[in-house]
């Protein structure tokens, strides 16, 4: 991995990002509309490198690892590309077209979130700083 020391570091950053997003009402409302169990599968970068977000039925729960239930949507990519993508440095459409992001399941809900990616990127930047990982912002 280019940006991460190990899987645990990557998962910590991503879960923290989503927990921080969970404090933003606009993003929470957006995720509730998505109404899906999403598995962010970065296991290409290591067997434990993944987390999931459950926004079904008004919930908003972020957890490390693969979800217990069957996810509605699986986004598979490397932890490095995930880093670029949350930092808004990887165009998701382009990455999907080029096979860098693989999507399984219904992605229509996620389209609703796409316009909010810029906002997520700002939160990500703050999260990395708070975690003492600002060196990762040099891309």
């Amino acid at each position, binding site marked *: 991995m280019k940006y991460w020391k190990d899987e645990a570091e990557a998962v910590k950053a991503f879960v923290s990002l989503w927990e921080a997003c969970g404090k933003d009402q606009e993003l929470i409302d957006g995720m509730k509309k998505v109404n899906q169990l999403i598995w962010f599968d970065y296991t290409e970068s290591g067997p434990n490198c993944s987390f999931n977000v459950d926004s079904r039925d008004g919930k908003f729960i972020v957890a490390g690892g693969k979800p217990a239930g069957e996810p509605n949507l699986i986004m598979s990519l490397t932890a490095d590309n995930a880093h670029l993508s949350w930092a*808004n*440095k990887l*165009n998701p*459409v*382009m*990455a*999907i*077209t*080029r096979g860098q992001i693989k*999507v399984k399941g*219904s*992605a*229509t*809900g996620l*389209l*609703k979130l*796409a*316009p909010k990616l810029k906002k997520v990127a700002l939160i990500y930047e703050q999260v990395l700083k708070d975690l003492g990982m600002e060196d990762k912002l040099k891309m």
Partner: protein
Amino acid sequence: MKGNTGKVVNIDMTNGSVRIETLPEEYYKQYIGGSGLAAKIFWERGRFDIDPLAPEAMLIFMNGPFAGLKVSGASRNSVAGCSPLTGHWGDSSSGGYFAPELRYAGYDGLIITGKASKPSYLLIKDDAIQILDACEYWGKGTEEVTTALKIKYGKDHRTLTIGPAAENLVKYTIILNDGHHATGRAGFGAIMGSKNLKAIVIKASKKDMAYADKEHFETYRKELNSRIVEALPASVLHEDGTAANLGGGVASGDVPVKNWQSNFWEESSDALAGSTLSELYLTKRTACAFCGIACKRVVEVKEGPFAIPEGPGPEYETMVAFGTLIGSIDLAATCKAGRVCNELGMDTISAGGTIAWAMEAFEKGDLTLADTDGIALKWGDLETVINVILPKIAKREGKLGQLLADGSVAAAKKIGKGLEYTVHSKGLEAPMHDPRGGGHGLALTYAMSPRGACHVADPMLFIEMGARYYPEIGFDYITGNDPQSDENKPEATVVAVTFGALENCACWCQFADVLTIPDWLNLFNDVAGYDWNTEKMLMAGRRVFYLKRLINYRYGLTAKDDSLTPRMLEPARDGAPEGIVMNFEGMKSRFYGLMGFDPIKAIPTKEKLLEYGMAEEAKKVW
């Protein structure tokens, strides 16, 4: 001949003659099919000195080489000729079920001239082609006529019909296939109307076609079909239709508001979203022939002022043209407006664009109650739009109907005001993607497109999203994060117009275009036997683009017509692209250089034409 049948039918509506003609094989290898082959025929035989609605004017229906293949997205067809709306080259394409039936009946195209002495329709059953009396259908809406023809001949007969607006020669009228699939742009419905041709009914007795290498194609076909259907855009389009990503468009400033005065209406993201349509009004998903994507909608609005029974639902363009563009985010209203336009036989893009222009003109005082038969034109007043304005236009009724029936540019010229806030290129109202937000490359392709402002003439919209790349020719140009810049856009446009010509000549649906260069070659060689390599294929695409430009030159168009209006070029007033200045002239001049265009005539130089084997064509313009 393989794939193609090599045959077209010439029909003279004046004297009722029908002549089946075999086209030279080299026409196909040079101009591919669809709108390219139609352009070649028009170049050879078209009249450049007559009104597009004159009896002698030519109306061409043309298949691509893949019509009838059991592959998603392969069975569209082109309609082409001189556009009644713009007065120069026009082509438009439609999905649905007409193209495969025409192929199975044994033909690649229909070339229709003349004018019948009374309302008529064509009945084509293999080689039995008749011109029949359509008096009982004249004046009736598309749904009624489609239903009547299907009852008369059977559901498996495919129909093309025009509505009353086309009979009244409204210049942005459509041709509707099987009551759902529109040949929407450039006003070809009016040409059918001018020929007293109300409908075409077609049925083939068999369902097969010839292939250059059937065995190889069959193995490849299955793999290709799964790739098309499994691609992410396909699943999104299936689930929520063509408006699935309307929210993304709103965020980027791509969705025009109030005649392009604004690039941002936040609430429209949810109100007009494809997912909202699915949730509230969708009853069924449906598809064109052999398409596994099924992006088409069937909707029902059960109650309220805009209630409509189950039937064809709106696509993205209609949802915006009768939504934010005219100051509304009422989804039920867009469903009804789309249905009314279908029934009357009008293009929702030009209709919405023309009405939006009129609303702004009224707001500014450039149009007054004296010009509008006493009707106030108010943003968002969909009841008046649906119940009063659209029917008036279709009937060319009163001052308002007459004014708006020829499109926004003619209306502005007629009142001598408001040209600066028309939104078009070469007279064709722009589609519902504002390049100031959607991408500056799109501005360039709107202006360069031979038919006028068009988002489906080429894949620039997708290129700027980052969804198209062709590594085989070194085109891995990534602009996804910065569509609002001119950097490399002329270079991208060269690629876009070439692949756009391939798509349009192959009559391949843009939503199903996951095709790589090897895919295109497989298709052209295995199905049509063109025996192409990459270079020959790309030259054919470029040649088609050149030929359409030459046709326009013969209509008197030059570099000054490769333009956008002041409204389209002024910096956006709000939204993501707010304040950004577009370097349109810089992009245009660079594109001319890359394409080998003369800077005044805006056509390829003589040398360039010779390089593309167009010596005969060169003689007419140089």
